[in-house]
């Protein structure tokens, strides 16, 4: 009776799945690599056990020595699974037959009872490997669940903070993308994807169909996010050029992910969330429109009030009546103030609507400072104003109007928060491709902790809230307008407050300096 055939069968030099080991592209498939690796680890173990047993046998004569081979069998079963374990079992049985059972150095065995080793080993290999595989798959599953829960948690957290439909869609897109590892494009059915979400025209065309079908040519997969809620839109997943069966499995995985995702979306009540987000953004638009139209409606009568007051102030009848002329002055002043407040509201609306666009042009910074000062002409006294403008200031490249409005706000603040009879100093000096304008007052200044907040929208210094009126918009507008022009602003605590403005002053290019010679 021979075990020769079995032994050859288990020979590691002829791995069983050799025929399928190579794919068309020449790379060795992952399971084959694993198999070779398992053999490389376990067969030396069999050899080691054999060596040990030979050593032991020299000292003591042991019966049923072959059971020692259960050790490599179990190791192979736990680490590498059934096939390597069975091969190791066969190797172990063959080794004991060859080395330890009569006749020695021959695969034949004299005692048929010793043949029982083989089925015993195979059973051990099978059962152990099954148990190990089950334990392993449980562990993998638990790990996968944990990962999914983590991404799901991140996903729902993003949904919870989403303020508009776009946030929600991009959360969905990122979620599906992270679960499939593919590029994902999403669009709500009535829109087309944006320029950076470029998809081939065939995909776009296919996405417009209802029910959604996959575009021809492969590479892309189209799925509505939800079968019941078409308003969630369609996902296009670029699965890439994958061949045959692999493509099918990728497809199934994506379908599974999408099924999960759509269930999650319904559970999280995305429909309502999108609706609410839309409502919020509409409310914002409405608010902006309201401010815009109210401001306009308020300005028209203001123009009449200011104009009429100015006529009264010049009327000869009133010139001889200083008290009445004073009243006309009050009307004019207060109307001007109201006009400034409305202008600030309009500016704030422009900033939040992100419709501030800068028209950059070469400008003399001194002109901007003078324009801002001229607008405050009636409010400068009794404070003393000192302007120190360096004679060699380079030209700045900014939006003159936006910069003027920014300086206006800063000067206004300096006037508002400094005592009468104090000095406000405006200094302009050149500094490496910039013009620096410093506006210093002798007011109470701000607290150190407030430094980062005084340029915030609606922020008003704690010590001024009770004593001065204001909206807290001024410095916020100043910063936004300067930023639009490529400038910036900072505040430091000096004797009072010094607000420093940087305006970009790039050097004139060679072509720009050509016409400057004076004949």
């Amino acid at each position, binding site marked *: 009776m021979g075990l020769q055939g079995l032994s050859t069968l288990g020979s590691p030099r002829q791995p069983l799945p050799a025929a399928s080991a190579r794919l068309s592209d020449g790379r060795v498939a992952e399971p084959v690599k694993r198999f070779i690796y398992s053999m490389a680890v376990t067969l030396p173990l069999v050899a080691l056990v054999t060596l040990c047993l030979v050593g032991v046998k020299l000292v003591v004569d042991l019966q049923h020595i072959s059971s020692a081979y259960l050790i490599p069998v179990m190791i192979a079963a736990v680490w590498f699974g059934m096939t390597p374990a069975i091969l190791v079992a066969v190797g172990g049985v063959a080794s004991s037959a060859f080395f330890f059972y009569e006749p020695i150095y021959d695969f034949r065995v004299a005692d048929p009872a010793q043949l029982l080793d083989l089925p015993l080993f195979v059973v051990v290999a099978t059962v152990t490997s099954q148990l190990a595989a089950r334990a392993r798959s449980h562990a993998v599953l638990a790990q996968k669940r944990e990962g999914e829960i983590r991404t799901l948690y991140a996903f729902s957290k993003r949904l919870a903070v989403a303020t508009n439909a776009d946030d929600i869609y991009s959360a969905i897109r990122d979620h599906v993308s992270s679960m499939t590892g593919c590029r994902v494009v999403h669009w709500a059915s009535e829109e087309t994807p944006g320029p950076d979400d470029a998809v081939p025209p065939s995909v776009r065309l296919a996405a417009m169909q209802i029910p959604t079908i996959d575009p021809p040519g492969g590479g892309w997969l189209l799925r509505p996010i939800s079968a019941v809620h078409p308003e969630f839109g369609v996902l296009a997943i670029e699965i890439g050029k994958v061949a045959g069966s692999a493509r099918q499995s990728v497809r199934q995985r994506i379908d599974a992910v999408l099924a999960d995702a759509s269930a999650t979306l319904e559970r999280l009540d995305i429909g309502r969330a999108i609706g609410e987000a839309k409502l919020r953004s509409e409310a914002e638009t409405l608010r902006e429109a309201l401010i815009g139209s109210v401001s306009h409606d308020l*300005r*028209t*009568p*203001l*123009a*009449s*009030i*200011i*104009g*009429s007051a*100015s*006529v009264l102030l*010049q*009327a*000869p009848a009133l010139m001889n009546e200083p008290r009445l002329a004073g009243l006309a002055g009050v009307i*004019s002043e207060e*109307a*001007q103030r109201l*006009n400034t407040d409305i202008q600030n509201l309009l500016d704030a609306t422009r900033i939040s609507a992100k419709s501030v666009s800068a*028209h950059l*042009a*070469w*400008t*003399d910074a*001194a*002109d*901007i400072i*003078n*324009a801002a000062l001229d607008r405050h002409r009636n409010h400068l006294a009794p404070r003393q104003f000192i*302007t120190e*403008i360096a*004679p060699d200031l380079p*030209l700045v490249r900014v939006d*003159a*109007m936006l910069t*003027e409005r920014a300086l206006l706000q800063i000067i206004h603040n300096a006037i508002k928060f400094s005592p009468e009879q104090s000095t406000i100093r405006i200094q302009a000096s050149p500094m490496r491709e910039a013009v620096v304008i410093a506006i210093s007052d002798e007011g109470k200044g701000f607290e150190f902790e407030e430094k980062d907040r005084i340029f915030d929208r609606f922020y008003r210094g704690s010590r001024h809230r009770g004593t001065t009126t204001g909206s807290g918009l001024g410095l916020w507008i100043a910063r936004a307008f300067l930023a639009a022009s490529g400038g910036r602003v900072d505040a430091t605590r000096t004797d009072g407050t010094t607000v420093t403005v940087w305006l970009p002053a790039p050097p*004139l290019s060679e072509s*720009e300096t050509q*016409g*400057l010679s*004076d*004949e």
Partner: protein
Amino acid sequence: MNKPPVSVLVVDDEIQIRRFLRAGFELEGFAVHEAASAAEGIRLATLKTVNLVILDLALPDTDGASVVERLRSWSGVPIIVLSVRSSEDEKVRLLELGADDYVVKPFGMAELLARGRAALRRQTSTAAGDPVVRVGPLTIDLADRKATIDNVRVQLTPKEFRLLQALAQHAGNVVTHQQLLKEVWGLPHEHDAHYLRIFVRKLRHKIERDPSRPRILRTELGVGYRLSYDPTD
């Protein structure tokens, strides 16, 4: 002999604005005609003797720009526009179309009167062929090509004088960057605003007492420059 009053045509759809403009102009001895729409304004401008037009840009029937164009097609009457818009481009466009100056709503009567008077003065002095323009302490003799400050001759380079000349021809009214660039450097340099900045600075050093706080050659931010002197400054 009784000189006929200067007559002004106010075109604005807001009755309250027309009311205070009428009061303001009549106090200063002007005769006032009112129009509530562009069509009526153009009709009155053809029927009546009008020396000055005050034109609101936001009219119900047509936009102000086309009114300026229509008026300019047959009349050189000075036009001052009332603009609510803060858009500098819009103002520049109207000035290029032939408006003489602008004021931004809300405005005071004194400001509008100063602009209107400057435009009227330019027309009469052009008609009379008077070559001397006076702006505060500055005197520019366009015929002799010389400028004096408090009767002291100012040495100007040819380009500086051309710049001053272009401003002096419209003394009291704004001249846009483009107009100045075209007149001094020629059409190809219409958009090289930095030339203008640098030459204005040079010119101010020669004619202003404090060049960093100009009192004669004033900047209209985003639009152009204006030669005007306010003794109360």
